[in-house]
């Protein structure tokens, strides 16, 4: 790094901006982000939008295009009402994990805010999307926009062909199973969403080519079962147990029409695309916040940002990274921006100015220098759970005065299990990390068997941990959707994992789904 003795000209003088300003800001951020911090980003596309368009984007999961469903309209109405009553501000930006990486910036942001937003989204998030192993493994940044375009067209075609109601009911059912629609373990090949559209078209063309009305008149021969498939073999054939319920339905539900399977596939692919985001909230926001903090500070040091702008930046930065205490009425869980940013700043400190304690806890990185190299490695190879488990330092736990409370229903009181002291650090860190493990947060639900010989009933298990049962009304609604898709009865048993005891059962019978 060179010290710039001669201050550079200010990026902007007033808080108004135009496209030249944006370009100047971007170039300055790029020089620092790529040149000094060594970030590796997708090409950027920056789009200016209005508040209304921001609301639009909110309601379609932030994506520039999405298929239509009433639930998105509901979310829009909700955000709109909140915004209009002045209860909530809109986000300053939305960034999309795509190649090129699209960042939306709102027109009413001041020039300072645009600088912050560009540093945050176009460099921070962008670097994370491009380099984190989860995103590399699970998402296809090149293909996502094309795939969504295909999905949108496909679903609106289906609405025309099969009626709004049928498509709506199918999407309702599929959305209800959204969090049971992801593969949690790596697949053999990288997802390739571009080929999805081609595949669907080919299959439809093939069906149309092969269609011959005469076949309908041929009397059907009853298939003769070659004896009873033994249980092992049946489960193997059906790929059971299966935790991706939508995948299972798409492949095996007996009554679904091809277009219905395709729509299930679309919902599943979209859920899979968003899956890494759920697992990396702390890291993703931490990375972006850390990057914008670095860039803004460098800009100020180099004289490209005046003191007024710098204060404006500090104000929104501290707002974003504010963490209320547990007894504060504003407390609503740990703020991912705050903890992510604090941990990454802490890592930087450990690399450059380690204490004796740090050397004990983090022998690999303490005093190693090159904090950016370490952070880039962290951003690439960890998710929230492993990141917290590995890098939450005792110093930070003390600073935040963390404590671990256990709420055991068998006891009259809550018990403090660990606090920020020598005995508690590791236990508390483990407990905190587990709260960020999606596999732990989401209930473990699996399709375990199908009663093929009998009434074709589908059997699912919920492996209950710590006696935390499912929310029962929602569960029965979801199960009804599931039965509608499956076409026959569905039974879900909630089984206590340690003892194997059945704690609760939910049942649903199929109602014919519109076609």
């Amino acid at each position, binding site marked *: 790094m060179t010290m710039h003795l001669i201050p550079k000209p200010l990026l902007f003088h007033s808080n108004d901006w135009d496209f030249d300003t944006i370009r100047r800001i971007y170039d300055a951020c790029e020089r620092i982000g790529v040149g000094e911090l060594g970030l590796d980003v997708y090409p950027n596309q920056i789009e200016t*939008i209005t508040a209304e368009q921001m609301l639009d984007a909110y309601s379609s999961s932030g994506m520039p295009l999405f298929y239509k469903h*009433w639930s998105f309209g509901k979310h829009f*109405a909700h955000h709109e009402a909140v915004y209009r009553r002045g209860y909530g501000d809109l986000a300053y930006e939305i960034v999309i994990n795509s190649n090129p990486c699209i960042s939306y910036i709102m027109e009413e942001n001041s020039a300072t805010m645009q600088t912050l937003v560009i540093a945050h989204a*176009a460099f921070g998030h962008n670097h994370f999307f491009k380099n984190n192993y989860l995103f590399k493994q699970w998402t296809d940044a090149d293909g996502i926009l094309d795939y969504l375009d295909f999905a949108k067209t496909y679903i609106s075609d289906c609405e025309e062909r099969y009626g709004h109601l049928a498509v709506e009911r199918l999407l309702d059912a599929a959305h*209800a199973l959204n969090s049971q629609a992801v593969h949690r373990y790596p697949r053999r090949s990288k997802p390739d969403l571009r080929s999805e559209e081609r595949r669907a078209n080919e299959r439809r063309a093939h069906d149309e080519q092969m269609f011959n009305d005469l076949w309908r008149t041929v009397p059907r021969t009853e298939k003769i079962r070659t004896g009873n498939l033994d249980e092992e073999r049946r489960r193997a054939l059906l790929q059971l147990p299966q935790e991706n319920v939508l995948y299972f339905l798409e492949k095996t539900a007996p009554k679904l029409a091809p277009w219905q399977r395709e729509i299930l596939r679309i919902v599943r692919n979209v859920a899979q695309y968003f899956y890494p985001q759920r697992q990396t909230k702390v890291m993703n926001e931490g990375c972006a916040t850390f990057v914008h903090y670095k860039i803004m500070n460098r800009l100020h040091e180099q004289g490209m940002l005046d003191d007024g702008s710098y204060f404006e930046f500090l104000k929104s930065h501290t707002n974003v990274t504010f963490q209320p205490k547990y007894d504060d009425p504003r407390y609503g*869980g740990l703020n991912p921006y705050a903890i992510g940013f604090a941990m990454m700043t802490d890592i930087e400190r450990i690399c450059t100015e380690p204490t004796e304690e740090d050397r004990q806890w983090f022998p690999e990185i303490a005093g190693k220098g090159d904090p950016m190299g370490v952070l880039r490695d962290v951003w690439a190879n960890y998710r929230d759970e492993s990141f917290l488990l590995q890098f939450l330092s005792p110093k930070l736990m003390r600073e*935040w005065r963390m404590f671990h409370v256990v709420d055991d229903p068998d006891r009259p009181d809550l018990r403090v299990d660990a*606090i920020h002291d020598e005995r508690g650090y590791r236990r508390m860190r483990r407990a905190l990390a587990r709260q960020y493990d999606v596999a732990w947060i989401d209930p473990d639900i699996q399709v375990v068997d199908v009663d093929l010989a009998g009434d074709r009933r589908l059997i699912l298990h919920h492996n209950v941990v710590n006696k935390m049962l499912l929310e029962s009304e*929602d569960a029965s609604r979801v199960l009804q959707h599931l039965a509608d898709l499956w076409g026959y009865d569905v039974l879900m048993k909630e089984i206590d994992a340690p003892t194997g005891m059945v704690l609760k059962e939910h049942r649903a019978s199929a109602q014919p789904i519109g076609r």
Partner: protein
Amino acid sequence: MHIVDRRLNPGGKSLGNRQRFLRRAQSLVRRAVRDQSRDRSIKDMGEGGEVSIPSDGVREPSLRRSSAGGMREHVLPGNKQFTEGDTIPRPQGGGGGSEGAEEGGGEDDFRFVLSQDEFLDLFLEDLELPDLAKTRVEDLENPAWRRAGYSTSGSPANLSLTRTMRNSLSRRIALNRPKSSEMKELEEEIALLEGRGDEPDRVAALRVKLEGLERRRKLIPFVDPIDLRYRQFAPYPKPVAQAVMICLMDVSGSMTEHMKDLAKRFYALLYIFLKRRYRHVELVFIRHTHTAEEVDEDTFFHSTETGGTVVSTALVEMLKVLQERYRPEDWNIYAAQASDGDNAPNDNERTVSLLQNQILPMMQYFAYLEVKPEDEPLSLGLTSRASDLWRAYEAMDDAGPRFAMRQVRHRRDIFPVFRELFRRRGQGAEAERVGAS
């Protein structure tokens, strides 16, 4: 890096989603709109606004852990006094898990904003105007003309030059009519040769050719009668797209502010409703005691007169206004009469006959609204308490579907009465003249 300015992109990208949402929650939203319109002042009736529906109806269920039961662990910031092993009394109200309630979930109502159009659509959804507009349209009293292609005959004023010249041109090309430029060339050549005088044979041949061409030009005229095309017009029944709404009210001393308020609410509803159906709606206010006069809106509602009550005077005034300004052929005429039911006993007969013989035939709809004091004890049988005017109107046989009468006692009755009057018919004729409330 690209910068794209999306601000000018057409908005309303999520309109499709919104429509799907409203359709999905239709019955809930409709109920919310109805409930709310009861509390709203008439002036704001036509505005959009925030409504809330039970969130249960638009729930998006998912398989998630319930917030109660089981062993929970929390890691919290901001420890002040605890050490390991301390116990904390369990906070009341379920302890509130660290996973906060999802947005829109929970038992709270789901609140959102409806636009004015959406609000009115739902508000007036299954109402319709009495089925009279159609008959009026059929008897073609006021036909309009519109273009109906071309014809080969017509008045010169309707000659379509473009069509005619197009036909003429194609005919001239088809029949190979000699062009004037061609003739001119030929004449010039003859003049040239004659001037030189050396090729007399060729000149003669050219002259013959020229003569032939000239003859041909005369045979094939530039514009032939068969080329002529005239614009044709055909009459069609033009629906009357304007309406006049006549508000009649008794303003004698017996009408209290409360009664006037009820009447006003009814008029306002009718006005909003007509506004949605007709392009242009005019209002006429006629107040009466023992005499009647046309007044402006403010006077109508806010000034009291003293005097007796002679209803027929108002009807006469109304007839006068209609004859002067609103011919039934051009206007859809609606009238709403509000009164407390008093009338001079000797006037009833005249009122009924005016209404029945002269007024109703040119009306689209005539609604009589009898406003009653709020605190009047509920009558057991309507007939026993029925007013003079009510009895007179009730006795009017053969009033047909253009006439309806209702009693209103309380503000909350207005909307149900209004709905009842304009409900979409079809499921059997309702008993038309049963008093509401």
